[in-house]
């Protein structure tokens, strides 16, 4: 029988990172809420974690350790990008990172409800979400393919997100009442 210490560090990194990738991505996106930039930071975080995997204390949870790297990589990325330079200041980013941890159980529950709410979204709207979130289409391309204006497509996406937020909130309130 092999102990965890005997696992090749590279394999350990892959196992740990793959199982936490989504969580780390959500964390980064809360600090820099743009998908492509967040993916770049995720990639840079993966590199940093790989290089430091030898320092990881396996008796402690991986996520908080990885978040520290993600946080610093986000700061670094922000310095390079004029778009994000003035977006959230350092203190606020710290506050968001800390508050996100406190809200973690609620966010988990909201994610459950998101799936239920998504199932109620009309197919046409869900296809638009698929194009935007799954296929990585730009709003311009979606507008183009649907024969709508870019502004109308932005608005349509905004409306769906708003509907989803309301739906989740409604379910949370019902959940609170039942609890």
């Amino acid at each position: 029988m092999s102990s965890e210490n005997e696992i090749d560090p590279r394999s350990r990194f892959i196992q740990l990172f793959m199982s936490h990738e989504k969580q780390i991505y959500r964390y980064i996106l809360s600090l820099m809420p743009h998908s492509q930039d967040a993916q770049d930071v995720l990639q840079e975080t993966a590199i940093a974690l790989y290089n430091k995997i030898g320092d990881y204390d396996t008796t402690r949870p991986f996520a908080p350790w990885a978040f520290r790297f993600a946080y610093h990589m986000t700061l670094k990325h922000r310095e390079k990008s004029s778009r994000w330079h003035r977006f959230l200041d350092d203190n606020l980013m710290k506050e968001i990172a800390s508050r996100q941890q406190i809200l973690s159980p609620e966010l988990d529950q909201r994610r459950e409800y998101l799936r239920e709410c998504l199932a109620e979204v009309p197919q046409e709207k869900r296809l638009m979400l698929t194009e935007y979130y799954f296929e990585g289409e730009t709003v311009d391309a979606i507008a183009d393919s649907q024969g709508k204006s870019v502004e109308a497509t932005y608005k349509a996406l905004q409306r769906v997100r708003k509907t989803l937020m309301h739906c989740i909130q409604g379910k949370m309130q019902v959940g609170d009442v039942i609890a």
Partner: protein
Amino acid sequence: MNLNSINQLEWESMLEGAINGALSDSEAQLLNRLLKANPERLDDYIRFVDMHASLYQEPLLAPTNMADTMIDYQTLEMENEQQRKLTGFWKILASVTTAAALIAFSFVLWQSMTGESNWDYLRGQYVGLVTSLKANGSDSDLYVGRGVQTGLFTLGSGKAQIRLDNGVELSMRGPVKFEVFGQDHLALVSGRLTANVPEQAIGFRIDTPDMEVVDLGTEFALKVDSSGESKLHVLEGEVEARLKQGLDFENEPLIIAKERLDDLLQNPSYLELEYDPISFAPSPDRDELIRATGGMMQSLHEAPLDLRNGRFKHDYLMLFPERLNYTLPDELAVNLAEPGTYRMLTENGAKRYYAETSADKQACEIVVRSTIVQDRIPVGTVVNSYLVHFDAFDKPGERHKAKGRVRFNNRILGVIVSGQDLNDSDALLGNSETIYENSHGRRTENDLVRISSDQHQVFLNFEVTGFIDQIRIVVEADSNELEIARFLDGNE
């Protein structure tokens, strides 16, 4: 603006602006102040952004049950920003050394994940693709679709075109020899090379024995003769160029802009003001018919010569033209023609699909047999035909998947997906020099094809297991002629 005066609509609009990266400086400052001043707003912001992030990961939005990872483990470290910005000999050396270590690292990661042991086919190794080749056979190791790696690249004779991963198009005329350091940096040792550099690749650099040329948004041609002397011509936009040795002013970086050549106080000796298309390599071909490709789809300028099973393997969906401006001598049956999301199933595939796919996902897709015929394109229609070919590298025990999309400038008239119909249309729409697989070796099974509502875009989500996936996309070549054909055929 008073923080308390922000109403719900303005708040929602601010959140949308944040996730779209569209906040102005003043709006960003206002958001900062709001989030600091109001803990409820802060929590709302976190909830909203978490939902936004979760949508990227939500399986209900994925047309298939692909377990997507956002990290490209094969190219993990190749994306290190600093490496791309290094310049100078020692830095280049460091970069190459590091790149070698990184490739090794990527390889180890890939091996760990997949058990794959074939060096040749790792995507992370490539920095580009040969998209076109007109040579007389002296370069036996070159073929259309071959991945370009870092290291020495040579073309003995003829012409070729390469697309680097950053979108730079390189056209060359043999004999030519150059060293590829990465997608952002080459060294032309000898011969003729012309580069078209898109906006995202500004900063692309070519060294020659006696020159350094850095792109500033342009198309430029370089040639290096047998003595190592270089000549430059700027076809569009501007470059920064300098001689490594020579007259004082030529040693200094000089901005050379096509539209402002008269501004130069003195013409540097390396600059050729007149463009001679024979003595330089030609301007790279650009596909005017394809507006964009995305995801795991790569387009080539011409069809590969052998498309039999196992002969043209690549982890990408490969798209290429087969026949352009071709007038159909007979009516052509196409399997799919109407906008929609189609799931092609065979009997075996159907069992698996219904067992593994949720009702929600099924509701988003139209399940069809690949032998369906949705339309017949009239005789006399002038069409362009494109093939998408997917024959991924063997990774034992794994299903090979890829998704990608192509958007054409003209309307898509139909898509041929069944193996038999592909076979039947090879003679008509195929490239005459290409050897195609027979109908048993190519088919679509559990694959997804989406035709956009405006019929200009096809999205594909393919999976191969032991055979190759191919579809033929038939696109109108000329709208007016198509309308006339339809009219004469009595369809409209």
